[in-house]
Structure formats: C-alpha cells, structure tokens
C-alpha cells in the first residue's frame, strides 16, 4: 500500500542552524532516503521551498482568488514529503518514526486513495 509521509517542521529552524548543523541535518535526510530506497519502499520524495514562496488559489463566487502565502498558517509548515510503498500502516508508521522530521517536527501519515484499476 502507498502512504504519503508529510513532514511538518518549523521552517525558521533551518536558518537558525549553524552550517555544520545544517549539513548534519541534510545528511540525516539523505541517509533516511537511502534507507527507504534500500528497503524498496521509496516511491518518491521532495523537499519544498519555504512557505514564503507559496501561493494559494481558489475560486470563490466564480471569481478566482490568488493569495500570497501558504494555505495554513501554523507554527509548523509542510516542508516535504516521502511517498512510500509498504505492507501496511504499521510499517508506514515505523518508517515515519525514523524520519528525521519526527525528531524536530511532525510526520503525518496518510494512505493514498487507490483507484480501482
């Protein structure tokens, strides 16, 4: 089954880190991605640019509305995702717990809505 692991972290945290800490942090994510790959669980993953680059779009009263900034303004922001393919929710949770984001933010685990073939 496929699950989307969404990482929510405080994006201001990154700029407050020393270059050495940033390097260590990035390396942890790299290693995590490698471990997922090696386990044959990784379908895809990406890191997102900070929410200051976000734009939200909606149609209200037949008029499109385009706004600067993220949809949800919260302490932790969606910072990236890992799309994984594993046996079941338990396996997805155990991978979520290994994600570095679980240590400095939150990882949300959501099953992918599978379409009948």
């Amino acid at each position, binding site marked *: 089954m496929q699950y989307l692991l969404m990482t929510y972290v405080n994006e201001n945290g990154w700029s407050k880190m020393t270059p050495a800490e940033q390097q260590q942090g990035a390396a942890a994510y790299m*290693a995590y991605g490698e471990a997922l790959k090696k386990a044959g669980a990784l379908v895809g993953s990406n890191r997102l640019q900070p929410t200051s680059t976000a734009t939200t779009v909606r149609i209200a009263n037949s008029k499109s509305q385009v706004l600067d900034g993220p949809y949800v303004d919260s302490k932790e922001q969606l910072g990236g995702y890992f799309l994984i393919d594993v046996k079941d929710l338990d396996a997805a949770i155990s991978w979520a717990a290994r994600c570095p984001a679980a240590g400095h933010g939150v990882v949300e685990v959501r099953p992918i809505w599978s379409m009948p073939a």
Partner: protein
Amino acid sequence: MIGLQSNPMNSREGDEQARNLAEAVARCCYGKLVAFLAARTHDVAAAEDALSEAFASALADWPRKGCPANPEAWLLTVARRKMIDAFRGQRREIAGEELQEIADGLGAAALAAEIPNQIPDQRLALMFVCAHPAIDAGIRAPLILQVILGLDAKAIASAFLLSPAAMGKRLGRAKEKIREAGIPFRVPEPEELPSRLDAVLDAVYAAFAEGWSDPGGTDVARRDLTEEAMFLARLVTELLPQEPEALGLLALMLHAEARRRARRREDGEYVPLAEQDPAVWNSQMIDEAETLLLRASALGTLGRYQLEAALQSAHVDRCRTGRANWAEVVRLYDALFALAGSPVVAINRALAIAELHGASAGLDAMPEAAADPRLAEYQPYWAARAELLAKAGTYGEARRAYEIAIGLERDPAVRRFLQMRQSALDGR
C-alpha cells in the same frame, strides 16, 4: 487498614480528596480488581467497563458521602453490581443458571468487603491469561499494560508505534479471544510453568524496551513505559519469589535503569557505554540487581534473563574497574546464543569477539543480512557492522554501513552520534 474514612466536606476539597484516593486505589489495585471480576466471567472487557463505571461513581459519591473505609471493596461491590446488570441487559445467551453462578461468584466480593485486604490477588493468573499461547505474541505486552495497570490504548499505542485505533482494535480482539476461547484464569501447574512464565516475562520485557538501540548493544532503548514495566516485573517476583528467571528479568531492568542518566550528556547528546561516567550510575539499583542475581543463581536454573543480567553486571564491572573482561563477556554471549539464538544476541556477541580477537574475527562472527531479511532494516546491525568495518580499516564500506544505520535510526541523539562516527572517517 489506614483510616481513610472522612466526613463530608466542602465540595472542592472533597472532590480532590476523592480523586486522590481513587487514583491511589487505581494505581495499586486496578489489576487486582479486573482480575477478580474477570476470573469468573472470562470477560475482561466487561470487567474493565464495570470498573470504570465504578470509578466514575466513586468520584460522584465520595465527595458527598465521604470516602469509604475500604475503597477497594467499595469499588468491587459497585463494579460487581454494574457487571451483573450489564450481563442481564445484554440478553446474551447466558443460561439463568450460569448467570446465577456468575452472580454468586462475584458475590464473594461482598463478603470480602467485610474483611479488608482479603480480596484475593489473581493478577498473576490474569497475566498468564494475557500471555497465553493462544494470544498473539505481539499484543501480549500491550494487553498486560492495559488490564493490569489500566493504561489506555492511546498511551500504549505510542510506545508500540501503532495507531491508537489499531491498538484499540487489537486489544479488543484479544479480549474477545480470551472470552470466546475459554482461556483458563489460573497460574499454570509447575510442569508447564517455566515455558508459560517465559511468555509473561517476555511480554513485560517488551513493555520495558522495544529493542536495543545503541551500537554497543549494551543499553536498553528508553521508552515511556519503563516505570510501568518495572512495576510489573517487581509484581511477578513478589508473587513468584522462587522463579530465577523472574528475578533475572528484574535485575536486567534495574541494570538498564541504573545507567539511564549516564546515557545522555547534559546537552542531550548520546553517550555510549564505554564513555559513560560510572559515578552517574545509580549504584543502589545496581546493588539491588546484583543481590537479585545472586538469589536467582542460588535457585539453580539458568535462563535467558539471568544471562542478560549477568552480561550487564560484567559490563558494569569492567567500566568501574577498567579491567577488561571480554573473555568472560564472550562466554556469557556464547551461552546466551546457545539458549536464545536471536540475531540481536549474535550482533552483540560479534562485538565482544572483536574486543577479544580483533575486528576481523568480529566481522566473521556477524550474522549476514542476506541470511536474515529482518537484519536489513535493523539499525543496530548496521551500526555494529560499521563500527567493526571501521576498526578493520575498510573505511568505504564502513561509511556505507553508517549511512544505512543513520537512515534507520529513530532517536535524533543516536542519529547525531552515528553521523559523528561516520564523519570521523572522512579523509581516511
């Protein structure tokens, strides 16, 4: 019994006193009450429901009417009534005769109410029910935590990395099985006791530690449930004082707990065993562990937990005296491996062999990930491999093994520690 009887008082103070008393009773007697209520009906869920209603009544009644002299018996009497009502209300296919029998059985509680401290302690039997071979091994520890200690599914789920909904469902299914399959509420006969007790001890240990987390494999991963598990281990040793493995398990836990603070620097960074400061260890706990281990060895049957506790005690001795004792450690691991040949033991044995005969001997003793697919996703395996590869001078392979270990680690402090070890190889 201490005179807990009190006069009705103003409501806030009364509320607080009632709540405190209810909490104290829940802490010491929850499992005892569940065990008593479920022993006759085999319906653990119904016993828990009735008991939680009884606790709710207590919080409503005690502030108004004063706390009862024997709160345990009060709760049991109310819970018993609720349980009988629930059985009647359910119109489940219980013959009138059987219902009468249940009512009579539970009625014994009313007699007990006259004599404090006479509620028979059937917690041990209940633990054997929870760890019965018919119950899935993975749910035994959560089940014991819930029915003996009254922890809710949410708290248990986090510790076992399951969703609360899934944990709730599995606990429910296990309780259903207990009821439907007619699992007997009794302590097994002496001839089957050792193997059945192993299952109970394994469940208690699983609650204590989800696995070995550090590359040295010498310390137990910390979990929130440590304290609860120690309470359970103590309970088993109190109820079965002549069982050496129960004593061994408690000794093992005390050793791990004694070193808890030393595993972290003040800034939260991880400290491996070899670099810990023995002065930070809790020597009182270590002493208790040693005493327990002596008591166990006098009983004459060696087992897995005694060996593991003996290993901890060997590590403690080496760190305190600075005297290398790797030959003894390897001997203990050999014995442990012969008894319980798990990959975890094999990894730690290989690390000890490396200390005694060098890194390449250690690598030869390491299990192969190809032979056991579980190892591929087992962090301590990769961390241990990396350590030995680095010692053997195969830096490229060591770096790759560290990379996998880092990717598999959950604990941020241990992850940083592994990253440090990995970058120490840079340029080599």
